[in-house]
């Protein structure tokens, strides 16, 4: 397929660039190991594909796709090394860390598509079951299994390790956990081995190998060729089960959603790679507020932009006295109505100016900071369209939002060094008041 590209000039330069980047990565010693494993993987996959066609077994083919997935995960690992070396370029102003996420997403989706293909093939095979030769079946199984396990355990695959921990558990993991819990009920000594969350990749490798062994046995004993198709379907379903949570997780990152840990810990104030609109009182010192908000948020959000929006700045002379602290949303997306928090307004001149996030930017890549969250700010209030003619739509999810965070006593006086210590707090930090929780 690659030959075609040579006819087109821009493509060749693309390959040239690729080669250049590859050299860059290959300069790193860590990537040698990965390249070695990749080469072995290619050889291994080639042999396995040959055995697949010689045994005519679709279950082995399904298992081989797991090996191919391993190849993708190795590539992802390489990409993650490359990403750490690259600086943001003008066009990719955020840098390339997202490429890692994209690679994880692509490889999990490809694995699932392969599984879908297997399902289709096995549906066809149910109609006309071909004969399976068991000759190389067991050999292939064990070669693939040992290679997969070896790769999994010897290479520290940062992106996949992260995703497999952060994503929700697959059904395979759940069943194993359930089984091992009941097993540990009988033999408590095993709990240290079985109770921790199993690595999903190791799990699916073992389960697939088990299915193949059963297939081999039944075909050898009784010539039940249909077992082959059945276990192919089982392996495909397990692949789906394992890959689906991961692709959902990385897909959510790609969709620029608010990361769940941020939501859970800090009601919606923080977004990673984020921008925030803050509305302040007319008489507040904008720059001071900006400094405070930034200070509070930037531990969570790597790329932060805070827009200060001042009420009534067009008609400064008309109004006297403090305007009710309102949050006005500059973005055209949504507005989050929140009840006014009583008692926080008059605590001090700085924090009584409510801030509120809007047009919330999202998690950028897997490891962007955000686990340590400082509770910030309070929120409240009704919305009203501002004179610029922006459209506002209220999204009714108030029930989720009727808790707010108050941060009293930060920078309460002019001495900025007092009062606030930037605790990389757990969510339980005590400096909140006035929450009303359902």
């Amino acid at each position, binding site marked *: 397929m690659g030959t075609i590209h040579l006819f087109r000039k821009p493509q060749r330069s693309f390959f040239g660039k690729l080669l250049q980047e590859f050299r860059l990565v290959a300069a790193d010693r860590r990537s040698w190991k990965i390249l070695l494993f990749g080469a072995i993987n290619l050889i291994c996959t080639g042999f396995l594909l040959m055995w697949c066609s010689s045994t005519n077994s679709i279950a082995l083919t399904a298992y081989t796709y797991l090996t191919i997935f391993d190849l993708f995960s190795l590539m992802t690992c390489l990409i993650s090394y490359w990403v750490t070396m690259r600086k943001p370029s003008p066009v990719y102003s955020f840098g390339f860390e997202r490429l890692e996420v994209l690679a994880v997403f692509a490889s999990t*989706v490809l694995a699932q598509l392969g599984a879908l293909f297997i399902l289709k093939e096995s549906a066809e095979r149910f109609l006309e079951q071909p004969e399976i030769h068991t000759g190389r079946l067991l050999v292939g199984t064990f070669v693939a299994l040992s290679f997969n396990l070896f790769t999994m355990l010897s290479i520290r695959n940062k992106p996949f390790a992260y995703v497999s921990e952060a994503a929700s558990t697959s059904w395979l993991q759940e069943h194993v956990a359930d089984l091992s819990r009941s097993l540990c009920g009988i033999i408590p000594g095993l709990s240290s081995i079985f109770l921790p969350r199993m690595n999903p990749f190791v799990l699916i490798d073992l389960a697939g190998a088990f299915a193949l062994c059963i297939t081999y046995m039944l075909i050898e004993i009784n010539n039940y060729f249909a077992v082959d198709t059945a276990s192919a379907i089982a392996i495909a379903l397990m692949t789906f089960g394992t890959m689906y949570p991961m692709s959902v997780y990385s897909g959510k990152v790609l969709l620029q959603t*608010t990361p769940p840990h941020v939501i859970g810990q800090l009601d919606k104030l923080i977004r990673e790679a984020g921008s925030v609109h803050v509305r302040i009182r007319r008489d507040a010192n904008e720059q001071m507020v900006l400094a405070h908000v930034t200070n509070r948020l930037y531990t969570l959000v790597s790329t932060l932009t805070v827009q200060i929006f001042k009420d009534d700045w067009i008609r400064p002379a008309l109004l006297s006295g403090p305007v009710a602290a309102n949050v006005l949303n500059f973005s055209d997306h949504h507005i989050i109505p929140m009840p006014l928090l009583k008692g926080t307004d008059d605590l001090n001149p700085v924090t009584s100016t409510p801030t509120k996030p809007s047009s919330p930017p999202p998690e950028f890549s897997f490891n962007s900071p955000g686990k340590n969250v400082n509770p910030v700010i309070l929120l409240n209030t009704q919305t009203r369209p501002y004179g610029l003619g922006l459209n506002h739509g209220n999204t009714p999810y108030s029930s989720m939002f009727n808790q707010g965070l108050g941060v009293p006593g930060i920078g309460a006086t002019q001495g900025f060094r007092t009062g606030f210590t930037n605790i990389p707090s757990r969510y339980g930090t005590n400096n909140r008041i006035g929450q009303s929780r359902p």
Partner: protein
Amino acid sequence: MYACQKIQTVQKFPFTLSNPPTNTKRLTKYIVLLCFTKFLKAVGLFESYDLLKAVHIVQFIFILKLGTAFFMVLFQKPFSSGKTITKHQWIKIFKHAVAGCIISLLWFFGLTLCGPLRTLLLFEHSDIVVISLLSVLFTSSGGGPAKTRGAAFFIIAVICLLLFDNDDLMAKMAEHPEGHHDSALTHMLYTAIAFLGVADHKGGVLLLVLALCCKVGFHTASRKLSVDVGGAKRLQALSHLVSVLLLCPWVIVLSVTTESKVESWFSLIMPFATVIFFVMILDFYVDSICSAKMEVSKCARYGSFPIFISALLFGNFWTHPITDHLRAMNKAAHQESTEHVLSGGVVVSAVFFILSANILSSPSKRGQKGTLIGYSPEGTPLYNFMGDAFQHSSQSIPRFIKESLKQILEESDSRQIFYFLCLNMLFTFVELFYGVLTNSLGLISDGFHMLFDCSALVMGLFAALMSRWKATRIFSYGYGRIEILSGFINGLFLIVIAFFVFMESVARLIDPPELDTHMLTPVSVGGLIVNLIGICAFSHAHSHNHGASQGSCHSSDHSHSHHMHGHSDHGHGHSHGSIGGGMNANMRGVFLHVLADTLGSIGVIVSTILIEQFGWFIADPLCSLFIAILIFLSVVPLIKDACQVLLLRLPSEYEKELHIALEKIQKIEGLISYRDPHFWRHSASVVAGTIHIQVTSDVLEQRIVQQVTGILKDAGVNNLTIQVEKEAYFQHMSGLSTGFHDVLAMTKQMESMKYCKDGTYIM
């Protein structure tokens, strides 16, 4: 009698947990009793299989009911004791009896078809097992992974019986001439099974599964009636009596019209007595006693194990001389021992049945599943347990379908995809149906291939629907980006397809197979027509794409001028829709999919012609090789574009405008410099951006914000956040306890900004 009454009262509510007796010794007694009864029931069923060979099934059921009714009326005295039964209740009892007759008919017919062993395995599940199985299968709240596992085991067991159990009787049954059957009824059932296209033995398995479900439904439905009538036993007695009366005319007609195969009814009295006693009476009484004394789940568990084990044992030894004295009917002579014997599949499925009965009957220990709503001040998570109940009261299915159809038809993208999907599905099902009818494997496999393709369309449809959802807290920018993700997945899908086609064609190049071309042409012409319609429908979207996605300056300039115009009166970017259509990766993906299918059909037609005209068998793999490469090449731009958007690249068609806009920003009065300009395309219609600007301390921030917003809006950025920084900000920041390094970096940046004023620095 008193004891009986007590049992009856408990029987009314078999699913409320009657307080389990802690006295294990007393429990053991009942367990032993239960096991023994189940063992005897297995004996009885094996016996009745032998009987059914001689006696007609309706006669058999009649005698069974007669005997049971006789005993039960004798013991229960339904007429003399209890309150009188109203006319209304009699009607209900009549219905009960009819249903009971039908179920036992199915049951014993299944017995004749697939033998006692398989019947026992399939039919002897207690209600609680089946109910929890159904709740796992058909409701979302199955009850944890354990129950799911149990359900999977059950299904595997049934599948084992269906597929891996090469019952020797199958072959024998197949030889039967159809006219052999005794009566119209059995003949009807036989023809029904033959119509399904499965062997008799498999048909029996399906029949028994059906009967099992019916039985459970029947038991559940009759629970209320049994309370009304005054106990399950009284109901049973009356129902049996009514069914005897029901079956009576039929049996008389039968015995008049057909000659009986039975030599002497007298010799059958003993076997019938054992069957009636073991299968019907003893089982019923012991079951009701045990369910009163023990928990239902325990009862089910202890009951299922012995019956399956004894079924396996008898399956192996029934024809063996050892069990001769167990058999009341000594007619070993005419049956060969190969009939319905133990096979590997049966043993495996028995093991699975035992496991699944064990798991499914265990009381579910799941805690309520709550939804996380937040954290308490102490940091402990808070859950909401109420939501579950509300969520499950979902709207009715027709209403749901109506609503979603309305949503689909609202917009042109989803409407197009939907219509094309319908067309495709129609074609697929016609193909599959015709394939099944003519028994053509090629057609069926092509149909599966089409279904496989349809999955991409379905995904595109979902993405088109979801992209219109309102923004939520998690999807704070809205769902528009889903279209891009779906386009990306579709691109990957096509690459996978291209890869498989490529592999296949390489394999065929090496080893060209013989092709049977006569069926290919009509199918591929049909596919070609369907896909051409699709191309016509989608090409509108595609032409849009090419205009914008190639980033040709002219077209984007044009659309921008239009946009600017719109902007000046609305002040807001909803006029972006016209541009937005250009980047719809979702529609592009769907279009490419259809295009790939079209190419496939054309390839098939061309290669068929070449093969038929010139006999070039090599044409087929070459064609598919060519197609694979074409698909791959057509997908690459889509993947590239989607990747760029997903990686938050500066949108290429806006590059120039943004560059100019940033230069303009430089020239704003009072502005020192800017830093961190990030612009990215969020979805087809949203271009988001953030920028930090440094201004002199005497400038009004809000005016600057408005100016910058205006400039960038004109450049196409419609979701913008601006951070205005003055000297004071950096002082405050350094005053606050920010890390030393950050402050250092910031001040450095600020200073560099002061001197480096040309806009080329960033861009």
